[in-house]
């Protein structure tokens, strides 16, 4: 075996108890870091997945952000216009079917129209405001998971009666309406209809389950009192992460405001960044504390082995070799701690995965955990790095030992 490895191994083996404590420190650090990262990442991923599933990836709405491009701007590069205001026009997307067809041609995913209306649902003298969305039951399954979220009735049930409505299960519970119940829907535009509950859905996000109802596009147009109105085109992209780029192109091509789910949830996503910074700071702190154990053991060994170090140097071993012996010892502790920490981290994750828990915002019944190799790699790298750093300083001090001083003291 290599001389450095041989001496390093002998040292840490001869201080088995101290070494075990140092390894246990690193193991605990790595294990809890992996568990914490899995929990934080898992909850974040779970939340994003639910969010991405629950809402359309891109919403194209009739709000124009910029005035239409002027012909002179197209003809002359030097032409520039300031102070133009968008044209006042009828609400809704102009010629929605043609717009949808244009988008469908290139968008990697599906497109569906919708009409958004704010209204009040009244049932048994109980009023609850809700966001009423007019949908096309044939196209809707292609842009959202609403069809899968139905736990009473189906999307085509909207065709069953003249004014059928699908409610979020918590919304139905709030007003006490059951399936087939007839309730009154009233909007700020002055429309008032009686609608029959044709289905219930459960998205898993409380705000949606408590405040959303679905009707046919035509019914929503009646509620908005705008015949032929489509004020939203909803797009579901094949790759949800590409939504931002697709939204940008739609906006450029149609001139309509086009917001990706990332854009709509920008505040939320930025809080995830802060959350991740906090997480990695805490994980780093855990591993840093664990490295103190390594520092302690390497310092102890170098102190106890001062005479041996002097002898090794008197025999002709260089400072570099002596330093490397102790750095390798720290590395061995770090590696052993990381390897055992993998097992502990995995066991902790499995254990946490078994715990049933109720989240007030989500309906998950178990803690969401993300199992990814990166957490193991990051924890191992930080543990190994901090162990090596913890070992380096006492090793450097040991390597600088002046052998004559030690030999004189020993004799």
């Amino acid at each position, binding site marked *: 075996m290599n*001389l450095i490895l*041989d*001496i390093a191994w*002998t*040292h840490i*083996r*001869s201080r088995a108890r101290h070494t075990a404590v140092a390894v246990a420190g690193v193991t605990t650090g790595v294990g809890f870091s992996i568990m914490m990262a899995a929990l934080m990442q898992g909850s974040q991923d779970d939340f994003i997945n639910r969010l991405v599933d629950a809402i359309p990836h891109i919403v194209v709405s009739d709000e124009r952000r910029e005035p239409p491009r002027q012909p002179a701007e197209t003809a002359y590069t030097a032409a520039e216009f300031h102070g133009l205001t968008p044209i006042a026009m009828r609400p809704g997307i102009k010629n929605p079917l043609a717009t949808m067809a244009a988008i469908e041609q290139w968008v990697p995913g599906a497109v569906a129209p919708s009409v958004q209306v704010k209204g009040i649902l009244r049932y048994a003298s109980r009023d609850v405001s809700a966001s009423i969305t007019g949908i096309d039951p044939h196209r809707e399954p292609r842009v959202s998971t609403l069809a899968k979220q139905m736990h009473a009735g189906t999307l085509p049930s909207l065709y069953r009666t003249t004014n059928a409505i699908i409610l979020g299960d918590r919304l139905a519970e709030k007003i006490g309406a059951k399936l087939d119940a007839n309730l009154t829907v009233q909007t700020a535009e002055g429309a008032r209809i009686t609608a029959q509950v044709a289905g219930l859905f459960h998205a898993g996000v409380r705000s949606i389950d408590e405040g959303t109802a679905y009707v046919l596009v035509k019914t929503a147009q009646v509620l908005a009192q705008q015949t032929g109105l489509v004020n939203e085109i909803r797009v579901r992209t094949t790759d949800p992460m590409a939504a931002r780029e697709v939204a940008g192109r739609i906006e450029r091509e149609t001139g309509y405001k086009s917001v990706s789910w990332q854009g709509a949830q920008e505040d939320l996503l930025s809080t995830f960044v802060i959350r991740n910074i906090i997480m990695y700071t805490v994980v780093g702190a855990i591993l840093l504390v664990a490295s103190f154990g390594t520092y302690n053991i390497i310092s102890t060994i170098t102190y106890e082995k001062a*005479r*041996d170090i002097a*002898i*090794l*140097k*008197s*025999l*002709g*071993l*260089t*400072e*570099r*070799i002596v330093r490397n012996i102790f750095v390798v010892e720290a590395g061995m502790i770090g590696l052993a701690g990381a390897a055992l920490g993998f097992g502990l981290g995995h066991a902790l994750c499995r254990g946490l995965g078994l715990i049933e828990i109720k989240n007030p915002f989500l309906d998950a019944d178990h803690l969401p955990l993300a199992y990814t190799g990166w957490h193991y790699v990051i924890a191992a790298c930080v543990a190994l790095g901090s162990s090596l750093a913890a070992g380096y300083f006492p090793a450097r001090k040991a390597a600088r030992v002046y*052998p*004559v001083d030690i*030999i*004189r003291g*020993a*004799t």
Partner: protein
Amino acid sequence: MSSAEAAALIEARKVTRILSGIVPTTLVHDVDFAIAPNRFIAITGPSGSGKSSLLYLLGLLDVPTSGEVLIRGKPTHHMSEHERAFLRLSMLGFVFQFHFLLPEFNLLDNVMLPMRALAARTEQQMRERACELLAALGLSDHMNKRPDQLSGGQRQRVAVARALANDPPVILADEPTGSLDSNASEQVFQILRDLVDRHGKTVVAVTHDLGLAERTDCRVHLADGAVVSTGPRRCDLHCADRQSRQGQLCVRRQRNDQSHYRGAV
């Protein structure tokens, strides 16, 4: 320069070592001599006279405050730590008052240690060499034992084996018999004597034991860090132009021939 000086293994030129501190202490003062091959030299003197300090300077463990130490004619004061370490590994073997064997390693591993550091032999060759050395020193039955399973004399013999591992021409011994009983001391002394007489090594040994010092080829006596006399049996202090060489120690070796070795021990 005489032929003896040219052939010197180790040469000290006006070496002075002052320990810095609030009150600077002179450990070695203006020592100036050369050590030719195949000699057994004893450095004697009272405690605190600078014997060990001089040995550490000759062995490149310490650096002179002024003057210089030359190994085979090469000045060492400008050498890097790495070059000095290499010279210690290849040219010099150390034996200390205490064996200073690594307690976790068995005898074979302890003896192989300098060879592994020098990395000039294969693992098999190192093992064979270590076995040969231990066998030659009467330790063939103990090769796989740890140092704490041996007597003091046996441990010191292992230390000698370790010093010889890389076959260095010079063995520097600091009170090699200092912690041994009289029998063990005699054994270790005889081993060192044989190294000179049979194997052509040069041994420089610091000792308090004047009886043993008497049996070496040459005795260098120090007081207050300076060489005050040399002698006795097979060397005598002789230097025709001592004053002109500013106190350089000049010794004639009588054993081989009657020629004068100016400035060489």
